[in-house]
């Protein structure tokens, strides 16, 4: 056990928030152990390529398809979700789903975490998003403001390596320090984006008596583009290439597979930050260590150790139970697992909110055929969006949404181009040149919108545990209760109306069709709706201003457990309309700063 005492901090989870925290601590000379549930992977590029090979050979190319299933640390799959029969929990996948709606989002339990398969969208939240309750009477207020977070956004944009243009991002009150530029210039907008921009020029969305000007705007991305020579006061920025093969991935090469895997790592993943952290000599990563619970001193409420199960072979279920202690503890296992570990430890929150307020972005997809070829299936998954409906007074009435413009045809909603091949053969009776020409003409005109609807925090949307449901190692499987509120449904209805008006203005042939048996299908007041998960799991241990209204403080330290930080998207009180990773990285830098202050204070006291 003496050896164990050597670590100042134990971090659970080798994803982006754990990696950033480890690296910040290591830079200050603190020793860090990261416990990772996933299988051991070396840091060489060859090891990463094995994921790529798994992806090529997987019949179903879903977000977790490159990352093999591990019965010792199971992960949810989008294909697990189905409509839930009331009163009958759906136990098909890793989650136990009580409904009434299925929770459809996933995460990756491997070193690097879900950044292995994220898209890389790096939008900041709007200033208004931090005071949603105050401004619109919905959701919750954050204990921090946009202005307070600005310096941390810069750190996050540096660490991830964000490509964007400041001028394009100044909407809905988003502002930047004078002379700020992003590390890299914006990723070139797709030919599709340009065409839509032309067709929609001057279009205004009319809704409930209001008129909204529509702009198509480049999206900030954690993806290597052209370095901006003006970055950092003229010092510029050096893009970070693939781990173990740094010359590779200096620019996005247009592999059109960001989700589930960027072959050249031009897209940021947490392996990059982990590499830096390990190279300090201060950070150890122990893989195949699944944390089961934290132990604590009932007297002073301090966490006293981390219990984990170390397995040798993911298929056998054999393992050894171990425990380790440190001065400080950080849970960084993503929203669902963080809450699960706390509940399994009997560590509740004075607020009663542990595991509650689980959120996601329900994504409504609509799709159509453009009036001419738009070049589908090329480039990053999305290079532009429409921020129009992300903010506005309507928020008190219905959920705001961001429009993501998809560059990969109907690949997400209907499995193009494979679905069209099946149809062309089975019912189209085509072959030869006719088949080829048909596939070309059809797929070239395809595009889709994705509407990321803000989900309100609701205590009834929650993660719990039940001794009846455990995995192979004897660890709890998350039990999930989840629903979609009327506020969100109204947002989806507005999104469908947006589609209708935009398609009319642009001359797009609407091909949206929803399957009534699909998970996420809803019929509401004459409107057919269909939403899917965005993979943006948030909530479960929200931050707030006191121990009664939240689980953690603004620095993500537990109100109830002084030497424990719970970090990640789980700390977000609202999910807004921006993809959460950038904001999560920003608050992680804040948390790391406070953690370092804690440790410094302690060393003075000692």
């Amino acid at each position, binding site marked *: 056990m003496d050896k164990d005492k050597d670590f100042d901090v134990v971090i659970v989870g080798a994803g982006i928030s754990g990696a950033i925290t480890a690296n910040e601590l290591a830079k200050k000379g603190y020793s860090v152990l990261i416990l990772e549930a996933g299988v051991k992977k070396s840091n060489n590029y060859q090891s990463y390529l094995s994921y*790529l*090979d798994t*992806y*090529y*050979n*997987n*019949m179903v*190319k879903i977000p977790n398809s490159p990352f093999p299933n591990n019965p010792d640390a199971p992960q949810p799959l989008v294909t697990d979700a189905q409509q839930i029969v009331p009163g009958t929990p759906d136990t098909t996948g890793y989650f136990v789903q009580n409904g009434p709606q299925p929770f459809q989002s996933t995460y990756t339990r491997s070193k690097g975490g879900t950044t292995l398969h994220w898209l890389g969208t790096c939008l900041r939240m709007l200033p208004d998003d931090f005071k949603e309750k105050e401004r619109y009477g919905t959701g919750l207020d954050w204990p921090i403001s946009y202005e307070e977070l600005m310096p941390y956004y810069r750190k996050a944009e540096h660490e991830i390596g964000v490509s964007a243009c400041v001028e394009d991002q100044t909407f809905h009150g988003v502002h930047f320090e004078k002379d700020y530029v992003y590390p890299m210039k914006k990723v*070139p*907008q*797709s*030919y599709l984006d*340009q065409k839509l921009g032309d067709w929609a020029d001057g279009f205004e969305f009319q809704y409930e008596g209001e008129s909204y000007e529509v702009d198509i705007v480049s999206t900030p991305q954690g993806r290597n*583009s052209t370095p901006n020579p003006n970055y950092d006061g003229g010092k510029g920025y050096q893009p970070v290439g693939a781990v173990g093969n740094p010359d590779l991935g200096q*620019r*996005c*090469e*247009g*592999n*059109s*597979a960001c989700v589930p*895997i960027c*072959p*050249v790592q031009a897209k940021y993943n947490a392996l990059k930050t982990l590499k830096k952290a390990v190279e300090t000599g201060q950070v150890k990563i122990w893989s195949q260590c699944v944390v089961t619970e934290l132990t604590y001193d009932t007297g002073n409420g301090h966490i006293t150790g981390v219990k984990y199960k170390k397995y040798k072979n993911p298929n056998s279920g054999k393992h050894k139970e171990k425990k380790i202690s440190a001065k400080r503890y950080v849970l960084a296992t993503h929203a669902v697992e963080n809450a699960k570990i706390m509940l399994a430890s009997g560590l509740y929150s004075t607020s009663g909110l542990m595991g509650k307020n689980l959120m996601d972005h329900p994504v409504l997809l609509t799709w159509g055929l453009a009036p001419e*070829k*738009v*070049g*589908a*299936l*090329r*480039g*990053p998954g999305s*290079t532009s969006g429409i921020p129009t409906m992300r903010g506005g007074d309507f928020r008190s009435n219905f959920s705001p949404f961001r429009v993501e413009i998809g*560059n*990969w*045809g109907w*690949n997400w909603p209907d499995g193009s*181009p*494979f679905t069209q*091949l099946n149809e062309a*053969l*089975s019912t189209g*009776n085509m*072959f*030869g*040149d*006719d*088949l*080829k*020409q048909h*596939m*070309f003409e059809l*797929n*070239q005109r395809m595009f889709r919108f994705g509407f990321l609807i803000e989900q309100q925090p609701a205590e009834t949307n929650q993660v719990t545990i039940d001794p009846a449901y455990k995995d192979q190692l004897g660890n709890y499987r998350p039990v999930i209760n989840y629903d979609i509120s009327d506020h969100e449904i109204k947002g989806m209805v507005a999104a469908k109306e947006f589609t209708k008006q935009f398609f009319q203005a642009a001359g797009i042939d609407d091909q949206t069709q929803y399957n009534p048996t699909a998970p996420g299908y809803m019929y509401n007041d004459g409107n057919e709706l269909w939403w899917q998960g965005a993979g943006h799991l948030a909530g479960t241990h929200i931050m707030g201003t006191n121990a009664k209204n939240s689980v953690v403080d603004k620095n993500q330290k537990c109100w109830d457990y002084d030497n424990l930080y719970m970090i990640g998207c789980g700390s977000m009180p609202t999910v807004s309309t921006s993809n959460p990773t950038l904001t999560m990285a920003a608050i992680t830098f804040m948390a790391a700063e406070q953690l370092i202050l804690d440790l410094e204070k302690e060393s003075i006291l000692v």
Partner: protein
Amino acid sequence: MSNSSINELGIGFKAMSAAFTGFNESTLQGTGLNDVYLQTVCNALNQTLVEELIALYATLVLENPDNPKGLKHAMRHQIFASPKWAPLAQNIIQLWYTGTWNQMSFDWTQAYGPFFPNDNTAIVSSDSYKQGLIWKAVGAHPMGAKQEGFASWAFPPPSAPEN
């Protein structure tokens, strides 16, 4: 099956596959997978069936010299409208387009097998995924491979698919 017979059969398979897929023989040759796919079909089903189909196609070609319209008409009637040959021909197209062999239907197997123990749905290899003709057909590149380069997506798409 000997190497020499697969080589010989490979020539016929390639010519037939070109007519099925709409891509010319040099494109098929360029994938490096012609003989692999021939072997895949022979393993999944049996060589006799494949030989019969290749022979049938060769006959139709002979019967329609310098007459593409006539050949197409004959192919549609003799192959793509045949309960026996249409499913197999379509599966060969799927193999070329997606790199995946799809298990034949139960009814088809009953009728023309009746038992093919090696007939399982599978992606042939990483390479077969990457060489899928579907990506050329739609004027793109396989997702996750054969990347087109930085900013390529900002430029107009090709005006026609490759030959």
